[in-house]
């Protein structure tokens, strides 16, 4: 049995152990990567080098969304457990208006498309179109929320209060949490627009738009899951 000695001192290497390659770091020699990966690109623009190559904010957003998956996972599980626990005449069969909800789901889906357009405009540094598409996205999101408010009101009129049954509590909690996420997204979109207009966005603008976009797409995807599990699959 031989002793194993790993990691004797070596020259700087890439993460995979190959020698340091400046080309992989925007042409920055290793010695310039000292300030935790901040260097200067040729045009004088400050660039950030991270160990993974992903930007900090992007990585953080992905992690946050990973966490959010479990939040919605818990809420969806609760709903699935309780979805049959309602009185005879106030269950999904009586309440769901699939065409209406499909329409509002379509609206939300379209808002993902417009968000993509906003991100791509921001990538081209086309500020006018960025703001245009952000506005459209916010409006579509608003339309979805309006639809949800209308839907909730209808259900409430038909007698489905928040505390009527386990089904109603878990349904309102799940969709309510999602609605709050969409609303926060809308606030983010509007704030971003305003800040772009006044040139108040710090750091990389395109990346900021992309961040909001990531969040927005996530919220949309969650809705697709909710729509499928809650509305489309029969109890």
């Amino acid at each position, binding site marked *: 049995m*031989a*002793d194993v*000695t*790993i*990691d*004797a*001192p*070596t*020259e*700087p*290497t890439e*993460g995979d*152990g190959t020698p*340091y390659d400046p080309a992989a770091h925007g042409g920055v020699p*290793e010695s310039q*990567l*000292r*300030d*935790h*990966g*901040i260097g200067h690109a040729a045009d004088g623009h*400050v660039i*950030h080098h*991270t*160990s*993974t190559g*992903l930007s*900090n904010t992007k*990585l*953080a957003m992905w*992690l*946050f969304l*990973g*966490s*959010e*998956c*479990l*939040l919605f*996972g*818990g*809420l969806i599980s*609760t709903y699935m*457990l*309780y979805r049959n*626990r309602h009185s005879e005449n106030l269950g999904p069969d009586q309440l769901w208006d699939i065409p209406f909800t499909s329409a509002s789901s379509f609206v939300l889906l379209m808002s993902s498309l417009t968000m993509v357009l906003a991100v791509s405009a921001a990538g081209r540094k086309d500020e006018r179109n960025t703001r245009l598409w952000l506005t459209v996205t916010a409006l579509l999101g608003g339309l979805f929320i309006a639809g949800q408010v209308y839907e909730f009101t209808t259900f409430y009129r038909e007698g489905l209060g*928040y*505390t009527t*049954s*386990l089904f109603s*509590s*878990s349904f309102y*909690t799940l969709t309510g949490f999602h609605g709050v996420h969409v609303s926060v997204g809308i606030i983010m979109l509007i*704030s971003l627009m305003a*800040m772009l207009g006044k040139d*108040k966005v*710090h*750091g990389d603008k395109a990346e900021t738009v992309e961040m909001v976009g990531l969040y927005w797409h996530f919220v949309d995807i969650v809705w697709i899951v909710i729509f499928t599990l809650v509305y489309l699959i029969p109890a």
Partner: protein
Amino acid sequence: MVIIERPADSTAVAVPAVTASSTYGYLRRPVQTTGWRAWAFSVDHKKIGIMYGVAAMAFFLIGGIEAGLIRLQLAQPDGTILSAEKYNQMFTMHATTMVFLFVMPMAAAFANFLLPLQIGARDVAFPRLNALSLWVFLFGGIFINSSWILGGAADGGWFMYAPNSAVPYSPTNGIDFWVLGLLITGIASLASAVNLIVTVLNMRAPGMTLMRMPIFTWMALVVQFLLLFAMPVITVALFLLMFQRNFGATFFSVEAGADPLLWQHLFWIFGHPEVYILVLPSFGIISEVLPVFSRKPLFGYPFVVFSGAAIGFVGWGVWAHHMFASGLGPVSVAVFSVATMAIAVPTGVKIVNWTLTLWGGKLRFTTAMLFAVGLIVEFTVGGLSGVTHAVAPSDTQQTDTYYIVAHFHYVLFGGAVLGLFAGMYYWWPKAFGRMLSERLGKWNFWLMIIGMNLTFGPMHILGLQGQPRRMYVWTDYRAGEGFFNGALWNMVATIGTVILTIGVIVFLVNVWVSRKHPPAPADPWDARSLEWLTTSPPKEHNFDRTPTVHALDEFFHRKYEDVGEGDQHEYVQRMTGEQVIAEEEANADAHIHLPAPSYWPIVLAFGLPVMAYGVLYNVLLIAAGAAIVLMAVYGWLLEGADAHETDYDPPADGGDSSKELVASG
């Protein structure tokens, strides 16, 4: 991000004093480098780490007083020190405080202080978010504890099983405080998890590959991933409970057709990873301490890393072993029983590796080392008793008895707390530039070890003799006679608590007298990892020159040279730690960039308990809290993480040039 020009020569720094820009047109950015403002608005990970530690220590004392009262009540049969009501609040808050307000934030203190230093970074990825985590945790902790004077604390046990947590069974506000407070501290944990994961993954110094990271960094990383995925689960449970208690929902009301086991599943899906969240940081700490004082690298570094990660994964698949008596049905019980045994394997790997690190070493028994070896021994006891209740049938005899109390105190006190104390003795000179007294430290260690074994050891006997947990009194009729009688061992446990308390007081005295100690040497322990490659306490910018890493145990390899040939390794000291650090100072980077202090984290954090009080007392308060939060969020966004050059007002007349890096960011 902006770069502040800084002369390479580290002496006689002359930086133009700058005042910060403003938010909302009139709120100037904080610039103080001394006084309370330097702490309250700081985004320096080291200051934040120290504040985490101080706050956690305060909660440790509160939780300790609660434990002391519990033990005094149980010293004799039919105790009368606490009423049933107060006793139930006491054990609920003892657990809540120790888990959420001591061990977790104390681990966060170490992670905050050490992670950037250990990976060669200047700060965490999101310094203001870091400050936010601290203040949210602190205000959340104070919020929970404010229930003591506002009608009584939560009384449902830290596991808060439904339906005992429903309003008819706990009509006071205590559980509401608990729910809202944990939601608040959960935000802190989540924010800090995201922040630290990004920091470790993205901000490593050149050459700091994943498999060269110090083991504490690794364990902290695993913990942050556990937090990232565990916190949302408990958040769902807490929201459901809040909606039930405050808005009339019936998620756990059997009358409405609910299943009370839903709570148990949600709680333990969070709760079991939580156990590893508590204990893995200490595993990381002693994996740093043992090699230093054995003068050998950690034995089987990759095995320790992967077993830590394995514990992190398997930890998600064993939650139902907390529910063997809940009536799950034999198939679930059998599966979870075997899964639980499986998790003993990676845990055993760790103990083996620590022991083999000692083997063949050159052991120096400093206080830190004593605590580390103490952890191996005491944690092994807890691990082995853990195996006895992985065996589900045997667990049905042991669960909810003092045997379990003994088990998890050996794991959490013997594991987590001893590790944290090892860390405090080891890194105290790093954080404060002064050594703790080794003489007092040894008193501290032996009193705590004797105290903990006398306190928790007898609980094995009490539990096997059938004394259940969470009983405010016990009776002589059920105590038995002979050597294993409950009366004797309950008394011994209480005496042990007194000794343990004295041990903690010795620690506090040690901290107090250390103020007057002479400055500590730069490398007092002949250390091995990167955080020692700078002065003690570290400068605000951590490293004069961002280190380039060539090896695991980089600092050791800079001091010692391998003069052996082939497989024969022989190490000769080439430089002292001081010399290595001096070399770094001599080659200081010209550009040093630091993030800017900010008011907004503490303001935002303050808004949250205001909202929580609003939920309990007055809707207007919710609005007020929300307004504070919104204002802080926008202030935060508008101000930016870094102070741009254009953000600075012109230098004040003849600005105070003695301040280094004023508001530098």
